[in-house]
């Protein structure tokens, strides 16, 4: 049996809908991972130990276990204790927190990488700790963190395929649905892969634009 892509256009709507959900979950989880990463990093660097310890334990848990298992726990596990989340929400939380932990590591590293002389230069002028962080340290850390965090976002987009297992009708599950009707896995998985690739190209172009703008203001 040869390849026959002629059936693919019939399912264009299904795939487009799936791609839409993939983009939606990537944006929501991406935002959660961004802001969550900032919160975790601030706690890890400046927080009281009573906050720092649980955050570190949490980070260790999320980095040391498979994302797939985390999604199962959040979606199927939490029901048992009365937390019944919609699949989309569970997927966003799982992906978002997972990548928040990785983003937090990057943010911490980029803040710690700012030269000690920068703090001294600012504090000597009379700036407070907070003013030094806001005006001197964080702007420099942001410039350093954007490229590696962009890579995390691309990884997040690709890993969003995992939420298909908890029933979010995103691109991978949409392709599977088309396959179950047509018995054409090769064509539809290729079509789905092509869609991921296109979305990723757009994401990368956006990140490059951001990096260029920040480089220009350096």
């Amino acid at each position, binding site marked *: 049996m040869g390849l026959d892509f002629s059936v693919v256009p019939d399912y264009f709507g299904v795939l487009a809908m799936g791609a839409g959900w993939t983009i939606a979950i990537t944006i929501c989880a991406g935002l959660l991972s961004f802001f969550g990463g900032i919160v975790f990093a601030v706690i890890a660097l400046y927080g009281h130990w009573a906050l720092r310890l649980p955050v570190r334990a949490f980070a260790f848990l999320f980095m040391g276990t498979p994302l797939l298992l985390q999604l199962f726990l959040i979606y199927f596990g939490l029901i048992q204790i009365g937390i019944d989340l919609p699949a989309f929400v569970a997927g966003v939380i799982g992906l978002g927190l997972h990548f928040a932990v990785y983003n937090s590591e990057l943010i911490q590293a980029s803040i710690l990488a700012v030269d000690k*002389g920068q703090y*001294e*230069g600012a*504090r000597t*002028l009379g*700036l*407070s700790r907070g*003013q030094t962080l806001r005006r001197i340290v964080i702007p420099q850390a942001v410039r350093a963190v954007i490229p590696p965090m962009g890579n995390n976002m691309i990884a997040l987009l690709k890993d969003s395929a995992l939420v298909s297992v908890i029933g979010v009708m995103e691109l991978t599950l949409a392709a599977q649905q088309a396959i179950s009707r047509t018995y054409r896995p090769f064509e539809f998985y290729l079509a789905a892969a092509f869609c991921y690739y296109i979305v990723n190209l757009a994401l990368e172009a956006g990140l490059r634009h951001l990096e260029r703008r920040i480089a220009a203001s*350096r």
Partner: protein
Amino acid sequence: MTNQAFVTIKNAAKSYGNLEVLKDINLTVERGQIVAIIGPSGSGKSTLLRAINELDPLTSGEVWLEDVQINKKLPFRQYEAHVNQVRQDIGMVFQHFNLFPHLTVRGNITLAPRMLKGLSEADANKLAEEQLAKVGLSEKIDEYPSRLSGGQKQRVAIARALAMKPKVMLFDEATSALDPELVEEVNQVMKQLAEEHMTMIIVTHEMDFAASVCDRVLFMDQGVVVEEGPPSVIFQNPKEERTRNFLRKHLSR
């Protein structure tokens, strides 16, 4: 304390664990005086300088600027507020410039006056232009630090410190990181400040500069002031053996 006393250091001591880096140091600097601190590396001269603006707080002893004790023992929040306030009166120039790389020269100079003194953008810009003109870098106002030479960076760092209208300027080996041909342009700016009677405390390895600009020279070794006096005495007729040994190594170069 006399009327003239401007910066006063009393019984200053500092130790890291068992290591004593400053031992019972007393120093009075008068208004408009220029004091050089010389000595071998590890002698504690930078530590003493950094104690004046609480970058490296003393273990014991007192530091005063006019009638304000800089290293007051206060609860944390009050201490921070106090230190942030007094540091506005103490300009500091570092060996490695410590310019903010994400801001232009203008941004570097105007940041603190705008944030801490509430200057308007127009006033802050005017201030930046004045200070840059003073160090001869007016044309660099919109450049980023990465586009400047080491000597230019240090002159911008001086302009940035001067923009806060400090009462005293501290120089921590301001020319040590510069290529030899760039040292003179920074020395020129410092000489100019001396002519304007800026009170200055200068940690330096440049004996010629110290001899030609400073009113007094302190020779430090192993955490103590071994000898102090006018440059003519310290450089030409030092009393202490340790001073002579140090100068023999440095002046022969």
